[in-house]
């Protein structure tokens, strides 16, 4: 293998598994260290810059970072990254002074944003301080989009939404609430320099089986129902409720039902329990509230009497796998099951809907009737129109909408400055040694086995009485501090300098994880098998360094490195060093523009 190019920004970025997995690439270990140091406002600002909604995401994020967390590979459960983010938001001081100010001088460019959810808000936040005049249109009276309409209050209090949407709207952004955009053509005709479509995936999928029309009064589409609950239009439901569907929306539906009069609430899914789309912790939360999840049941018919829903008939199925490993649900042969109920909530998916986009304005649609969107620039085939969030590639999560928003804002900025939107600037990378002196490191590397701490919950009886009572109480400072200590500081990189190495094996001998090997060079597959502990995780890179005196190579398997720094501590010549690697993703801001110019 060749020398690993550690100067390429991606190499060490990948080692920081959580940051690499985060769509917005939030520098997780950095903010966890700040929390550990009690610098909550600083930790909040690191988050705010990167993911815009720390308080909201700290309660609702789908946490792609956590399955990626190294702690999960070397111990069992990952660090509770998401809930630590909430600690930063809960304990910060007033940070308004640290936020960007509304632009004093406007640059004369006008941007229209359709939909007031996380994607549009991110675009507006990035662009407004630069002097852009941003106008957000939303059908609802207040900003937030699905954050406000679909996430129940017992998971996310309204005050948090108001606060974090407020930080953005205070940047001098015009929010036009209660206004649906019915024609993109008309909007474009108003002469905007660019239009961003962040209108989400607003249509809940329908379940067209017998009895649907007749019993319609008691059959509700999940996301519409949640939205009505959110705005206070609905405040009760029948005693016996069936929720159809296995995603996070289904979990929100069933838990909301429990708080609005539902006593016997069931979630019923077609697939097996394990294959459900809902995050494991959301399923846990539902079951904690005495909601059973029944699986392998396919709804066949709504039963009704005198126009009133009486229940649902299900066919029992089982999973069979074909030669290609694809799963098919086939009838198990058991008799159909009738489950009586008063109300049904249908939460079996949601879809995009663009009836308001004319098909003759240069925006091409694909065969699934989705706009063709460039995955890097988020541009449509109309150079002035950009998409992001669920509107771009179908339903995902808030953090994806934020990531899309940053990229789209960068594209819009470049477009309005007359630059090529396909020329994407590299991230800013900063690498600094953490050595303070002999045996002194500027990060806490005393790593111990320690189980994940649980977030305290509100008493169930109290929680079920009030739909606005937040269930999770958040870590207190003591628990939060303990949880921060589980972070392995993966951004403190092991950096190797061949020229200094005397091949004494001190690092090999001390490494608690057997990550380091000095051996004859070979092809990657061959090397992976020959290491001190075989490197079987192919998603994790090998760090290879040539130019050793004996002609061998140093190979470090990044997979389970604890970043404890023992290799650097035991190295007599300083060939190993622990360096903090901060990767700052480029957003649309002044810095990125000057950076681009200096590169040109």
């Amino acid at each position, binding site marked *: 293998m060749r020398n690993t190019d550690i100067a390429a920004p991606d190499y060490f970025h990948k080692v920081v598994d959580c940051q690499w997995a985060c769509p917005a690439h939030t520098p997780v270990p950095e903010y966890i260290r700040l929390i550990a140091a009690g610098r909550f406002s600083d930790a909040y600002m690191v988050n705010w810059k990167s993911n815009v909604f720390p308080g909201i995401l700290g309660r609702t994020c789908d946490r792609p970072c956590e399955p990626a967390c190294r702690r999960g590979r070397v111990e069992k459960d990952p660090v509770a990254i998401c809930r630590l983010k909430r600690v930063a938001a809960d304990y910060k001081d007033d940070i308004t002074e640290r936020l960007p100010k509304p632009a004093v001088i406007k640059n004369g460019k006008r941007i229209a944003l359709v939909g007031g959810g996380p994607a549009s808000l991110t675009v507006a936040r990035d662009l407004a301080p630069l002097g852009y005049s941003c106008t957000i249109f939303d059908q609802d009276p207040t900003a937030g989009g699905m954050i406000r309409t679909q996430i129940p209050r017992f998971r996310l209090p309204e005050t948090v939404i108001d606060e974090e949407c407020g930080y953005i709207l205070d940047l001098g952004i015009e929010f036009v609430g209660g206004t649906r955009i019915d024609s993109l053509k008309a909007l474009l005709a108003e002469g905007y320099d660019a239009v961003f479509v962040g209108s989400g995936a607003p249509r809940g999928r329908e379940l067209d089986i017998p009895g649907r029309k007749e019993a319609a009064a008691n059959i509700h589409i999940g996301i519409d129902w949640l939205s009505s609950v959110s705005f206070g239009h609905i405040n009760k439901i029948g005693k016996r409720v069936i929720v159809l569907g296995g995603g996070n929306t289904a979990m929100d539906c069933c838990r909301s039902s429990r708080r609005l009069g539902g006593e016997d609430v069931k979630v019923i899914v077609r697939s097996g329990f394990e294959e459900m789309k809902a995050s494991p912790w959301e399923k846990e939360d539902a079951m904690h509230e005495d909601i059973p999840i029944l699986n392998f049941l396919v709804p066949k018919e709504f039963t009704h009497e005198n126009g009133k829903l009486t229940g649902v008939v299900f066919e029992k199925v089982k999973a069979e796998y074909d030669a290609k490993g694809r799963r098919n649900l086939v009838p198990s042969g058991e008799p159909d099951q009738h489950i009586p109920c008063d109300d049904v909530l249908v939460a079996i998916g949601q879809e995009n809907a663009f009836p308001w986009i004319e098909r003759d304005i240069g925006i091409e649609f694909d065969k699934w009737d989705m706009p063709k969107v460039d995955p890097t620039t988020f541009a449509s085939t109309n150079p002035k129109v950009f998409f992001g969030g669920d509107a771009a590639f179908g339903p995902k999560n808030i953090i994806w909408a934020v990531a899309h928003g940053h990229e789209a804002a960068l594209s819009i900025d470049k477009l309005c400055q007359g630059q090529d939107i396909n020329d994407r600037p590299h991230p800013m990378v900063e690498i600094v040694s953490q050595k303070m002196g002999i045996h002194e490191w500027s990060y806490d590397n005393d790593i111990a086995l320690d189980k994940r701490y649980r977030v305290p919950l509100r008493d169930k009886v109290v929680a079920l009485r009030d739909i606005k009572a937040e269930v999770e109480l958040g870590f207190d400072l003591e628990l939060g501090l303990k949880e921060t200590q589980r972070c392995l500081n993966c951004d403190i990189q092991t950096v190797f300098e061949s020229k200094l190495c005397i091949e004494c094996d001190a690092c090999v001998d001390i490494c608690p994880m*057997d990550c380091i090997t000095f051996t004859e060079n070979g092809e990657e597959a061959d090397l992976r098998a020959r290491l001190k502990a075989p490197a079987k995780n192919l998603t994790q890179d090998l760090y290879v360094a040539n130019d050793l005196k004996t002609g061998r190579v140093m190979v470090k398997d990044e997979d389970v490195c604890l970043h404890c720094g023992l290799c650097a501590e035991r190295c007599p010549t300083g060939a190993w060093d622990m360096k903090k690697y901060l990767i700052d993703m480029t957003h649309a801001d002044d810095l990125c523009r000057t950076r681009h110019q200096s590169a040109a």
Partner: protein
Amino acid sequence: MTYITKPKFHHPSLPKNALGYTHRDYEGKVSTLCAGCGHDSITASIIEACFELAIEPHRVAKISGIGCSSKTTDYFLNASHGFNSVHGRMPSVLTGANLANRDLIYLGVSGDGDSASIGLGQFAHAMRRGVNMTYIVENNGVYGLTKGQFSATADRGSKSKRGLTNNDNAIDLVAMGLQLGATYVARAFSGDKTQLVPLIKAAIEHEGAALIDVISPCVAFNNHAGSTKSFDYVREHNEAVNRLDFISGRAPIHVSYDPGSTQVVEQHDGSRLVLKKVAADYDAHDRAGAMNFLAHHAAKGQIVTGLIFVDSEPEDLHRHFNTVDKPLNTLSEKELCPGSAALEKINASLR
């Protein structure tokens, strides 16, 4: 010195030996030696050898004297018996322990100061008596604890870190071991574990006096230009006579070796030493030839490593003394006090 505690985490797919232990279970405390010390590599090799042999740690007695090398017994086999003796007196403590309990595995760890200076007499007598032990000399040619004076194994003409030249002749412990009748004599380099680990394994299984002289660079005081025990010098002048594969008598043997280039040594316990010859005409069974070979190469400034001599039918101290074949602590009162008739018999034989 290291102030970071070594985490208890280990690699999730770490192999286990027949006892269900990983190599981490054979570790001791974190080393307090200088970072990069060759001795730490020897420690790691001992850990690896004991792991691979699936030795029960409580069956090992690790005995040492004084010095950097002798501190290392604290850094491996946490669950073994240990004794840090007076300077240079490891061999007699080990001999005594071995006489009392012949069932334990004896691991003597010493250095060039401990064995070639203050303890030279002890070293010589343990070798000539054929104590069943593995005697490892961690040889760096320098007094590290007292800041870098030449030791008795420093080569004549080599330079100290301060630039002084050594005018005394060096003691070659391997040559002495051969001359004094050790039945397993090897030399290795701490920077080459692939060579060292099988040599330690074979020495542990050898039922006689086994000596391994391990050149172990002192990173603080003897790793400079002009030293003959530096990483660079040893790598440049290393003349390996063979590469050893150790096959335990318990393991089935599947590997077939080309008889032209290998020499298979059957040991008393059924284990096999497979020697891959590097020096074509070298015979590891020829004590006199080995001494010759050693002297010849030493004169050229070459360091001969590998398994230099092995006697496949070794004899040990217990056999010479015709001692009881059980550890003394297992003998009952009946065996220890056979009664007045037996005493009469002994007395009669002396009259």
